[in-house]
């Protein structure tokens, strides 16, 4: 037990990677063995994450469960892991969604082995980002997560997968080049890539770098970080890769993409941009806020305009992640000022919204996948009146949609309310917040449009006689998500307590 606690983060990180190797050694044709092996192996990180949750002390300042080991000594980059109250919920979310996505993927028939291996590697990459405390290590995992996702879309995706996967990869890669160059600049200036050291020393760094004043370098590096993370979130106008990638990805890929990968960008803002560039973030917070507003409104409008069910859900991610960014922008704006309360509320809302969107987006994509598996179409006009044909499915879809819409009593409401509550009280953001309500209104519209087109109206005779009902395995895959949506909606404080302590410290 002592060993486990000492190396808890490494275990969470490497068990999926080792699991991938194990699956790789299993026989190719025994597909059921491969599926179950991957599923069971992915439960281990979840178990460790729950242990982490239990042992994590929200009130202790700084990072916990830290591990330090020499790694790339020549350039002074180390293996440094640690978690705080912002990363622990994300670790939990990742380790929870991965087994569910794998369970849902039991219906994958082609190249099962490669699929499962990539999925486990993907999990390792994402977890690494949430736990890394070294900039190079952070970047390593940031990029490593790209590769499995590229192949998941490219090999198991639908018709337009090649274009979508290429766009996804190049878009993210282009963003990360700037990030890498900015990280290098920090490393050169400070002589180390350690994140804790950088957080302490970089904001006040006062020497000239490359003959350019530290303020200018920081401003440029700030934008390099911001654009890289903005692409990942994605923030309008960097979002165009997302609808393509989501639409073409296999269902479980979309679940992880929306559920976790988008969070990497938002996490990057909280973990790096705010602490490393407090002054720049404050200066440009309004810009960020306006972009978030655009994401909220345009995302909702675009979503409403879709006739492809999956694209509709994909654009809804742009809309929902906009609230995360709005919360972050508010936090950046009031950080360090005399009265950070509103910022703390907004940042709490942002982190909670990250978690919530992870649940509801994964659930929505799962349900889209279920209906697509049976009808082989995602065209909303092809559906209609399916409720009587698939009553359980209909119930689940309505429940999940309501969580996504932000119905009070379910999780989405809590976090969006917190963001809006925090943002509205800050004078500079009042107008932005007010305008973002248009987006909230449209959220209702597109959610209802989705439900109405699929479940209600006259029954499309085409589907009569088809068995459209959701299977038990699929219900099991979504049940934990539904339970969490309800629990967080009713009693959010178990989660907010952990987040709040970390966010309060972040806000100084």
């Amino acid at each position: 037990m002592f060993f486990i606690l000492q190396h808890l983060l490494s275990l969470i990180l490497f068990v999926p990677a080792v699991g991938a190797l194990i699956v790789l050694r299993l026989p190719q044709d025994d597909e059921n063995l491969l599926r179950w092996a991957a599923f069971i192996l992915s439960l281990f990180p979840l178990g460790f994450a729950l242990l982490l949750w239990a042992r994590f002390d929200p009130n202790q300042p700084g990072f916990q469960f830290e591990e330090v080991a020499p790694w790339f000594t020549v350039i002074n980059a180390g293996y440094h892991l640690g978690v705080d109250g912002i990363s622990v919920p994300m670790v939990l979310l990742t380790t929870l969604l991965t087994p569910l996505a794998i369970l849902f993927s039991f219906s994958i028939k082609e190249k099962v082995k490669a699929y499962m291996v990539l999925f486990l590697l993907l999990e390792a990459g994402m977890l690494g980002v949430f736990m890394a405390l070294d900039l190079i290590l952070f970047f390593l995992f940031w990029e490593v997560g790209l590769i499995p996702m590229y192949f998941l879309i490219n090999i198991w995706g639908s018709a337009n997968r090649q274009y979508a996967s290429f766009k996804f990869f190049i878009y993210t890669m282009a963003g990360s080049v700037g990030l890498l160059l900015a990280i290098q600049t920090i490393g050169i200036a400070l002589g180390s890539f350690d994140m804790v050291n950088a957080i302490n020393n970089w904001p006040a760094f006062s020497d000239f770098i490359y003959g350019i004043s530290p303020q200018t370098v920081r401003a440029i590096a700030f934008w390099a970080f911001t654009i890289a993370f903005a692409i990942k979130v994605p923030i309008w106008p960097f979002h165009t890769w997302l609808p393509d990638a989501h639409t073409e990805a296999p269902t479980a890929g979309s679940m992880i993409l929306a559920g976790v990968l988008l969070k990497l960008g938002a996490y990057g803002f909280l973990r790096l941009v705010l602490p490393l560039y407090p002054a720049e973030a404050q200066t440009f917070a309004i810009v960020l806020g306006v972009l978030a507003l655009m994401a909220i409104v345009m995302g909702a409008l675009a979503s409403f305009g879709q006739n492809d069910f999956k694209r509709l859900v994909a654009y809804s991610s742009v809309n929902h992640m906009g609230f995360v960014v709005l919360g972050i922008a508010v936090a950046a704006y009031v950080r360090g000022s005399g009265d950070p309360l509103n910022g703390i509320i907004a940042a709490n809302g942002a982190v909670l919204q990250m978690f919530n969107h992870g649940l509801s987006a994964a659930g929505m994509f799962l349900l889209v996948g279920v209906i697509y598996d049976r009808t082989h179409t995602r065209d909303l006009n092809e559906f209609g009146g399916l409720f009587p044909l698939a009553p359980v499915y209909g119930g689940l879809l309505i429940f999940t949609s309501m969580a996504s819409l932000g119905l009070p009593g379910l999780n989405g409401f809590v976090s969006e309310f917190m963001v809006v509550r925090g943002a509205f009280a800050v004078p500079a953001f009042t107008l932005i917040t007010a305008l973002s309500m248009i987006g909230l209104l449209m959220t209702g519209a597109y959610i209802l449009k989705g439900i109405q087109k699929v479940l209600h109206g006259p029954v499309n005779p085409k589907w009569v006689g088809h068995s459209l009902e959701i299977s038990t395995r699929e219900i099991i895959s979504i049940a934990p998500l539904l339970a969490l949506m309800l629990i967080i909606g009713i009693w959010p404080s178990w989660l907010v307590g952990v987040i709040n302590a970390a966010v309060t410290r972040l806000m100084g």
Partner: protein
Amino acid sequence: MNFPFLTIITFTPLAAGLLILLFPAERKDEVRVTALAAAVIATALSLFVYFTYNSAAGGYQFIEKYDWVPQFGISYHVGVDGMSLPLVLLTSVVMLTGVLISWGLDDRPREFFAFLFILATGVFGVFVALDLFHLFFFYEIAVFPMYLLIAIWGWAKTREYAAMKLTLYLFIGSVVSLVGALAMYYTSGLNTFDMLRLAEANFSPEFQRLWFPFVFFGFAILGGIFPFHNWSPDGHVAAPTAVSMFHAGVLMKLGAFAALRVGIMLLPEGARFHMPWIVLLTLVNVVYGSFIAMVQKDLKYMIGFSSVSHMGLVAMAFTTLNREGYVGAGLQMFSHGVMTALFFACVGMIYDRAHTRMMPELGGISKKMPWVAVAFIIGGFTSMGMPGLSGFVAELPIFLGVWKAKAVDVSGYPQWLSWLANMAQQPWYFPAIALISAIAIVVTAAYVLRAVQKVFFGEISPEHDHHVGDVTVLDKTALSILVGLMILIGLYPTIMAPLIETGVMPILKLLKVA
């Protein structure tokens, strides 16, 4: 250490090559087994030397020195340091994997392996040389068999042209550097070719500035530096698979290494003076090379140009004159060697079975050759500098080095170049170069993904579906060795980086920047 490890490593291939020639031509299996045995011996010894080298002590180790032509101060003088040791290991690994994947070669394997191994001896000889004459001697041994290997076993369409072009380019290069070397020999007045002594000869700055370009570019031609890179893609493409592996994997390193050993280490003042403008050439290598690779339709040409781009990073690292840059150069030489050997091995395997390398004609190969697909993809990610693989570990320090680099000594530039001297002294000069070369990372990602997409995924043509089969166990072994090295170094750079650092420190002392 009195046991002559380095001599044995150097001459094992030659001995095996001569032995192979004694076999009757039709006994192909004996030839192959002998070749494999020699490669295994060389690899085992290289590994032993690699892991017994004392990093704490640093410097040249495993030294052997015998008089050769004492009248002219020529000696047989070998030794390895942190810079050359990884390259010795690289050579033996490429040799081993080259033999493995050439197992099925049926056209005169006896002569093929004999020439290949003579070439390998030449390469080893250069990497361990501590005597200038010795270095040139083996350098020529390495270049000459290449002509025959390409002209006889090469791709029928271009082999004569490519072999001739390559050989002429490289001979011209070596003649130019030989002139520089002789100038050093006579000017030093020490009557010795011993590089350790020449390094202390205190050549005047004027002398060094005059002769550095001769020596550096003479060798850097083989390293593929712009605008003298043009022989290399043609040569790569025309060569048979194992030779391409050697060629891009090892021979290009030979050029870069000799440019470092002879050019930079013996004429450090010259390096300080000239590097600020040479970096512009390397920038062209890196960026332009990647764009040219992007427009290729022939898979092998694409890889050939990607080598130009990646070797440009090595040369760019040399221009930084700092620790990070040089450590990165050492890592990149090893990493690129492994990666590009892997690429050419994969392309060879595909070509052998599909009889085409044109990307538009290929597709869906991953169904038929899953191992090749996985290996090529991992190699591709290495080449785009994906973290967790050796390419990242190598390119990251290079970029750090370029960011940090400063033009140390440009005061003596002629009047008409004063604008360049002024520009190079600006603090933003090298950072701007780092920024521009970062474009290559994205372009590389694009062309690698495009190639992976076209070749391995999508629809397989009915003709290929019919007759393309999977690769052999030996091929898989070779691919696994190469892929394993890329992952190992990518995840655990400490296995190589500190060693290289011990080799870099003395260089920095010579350059007076440490």
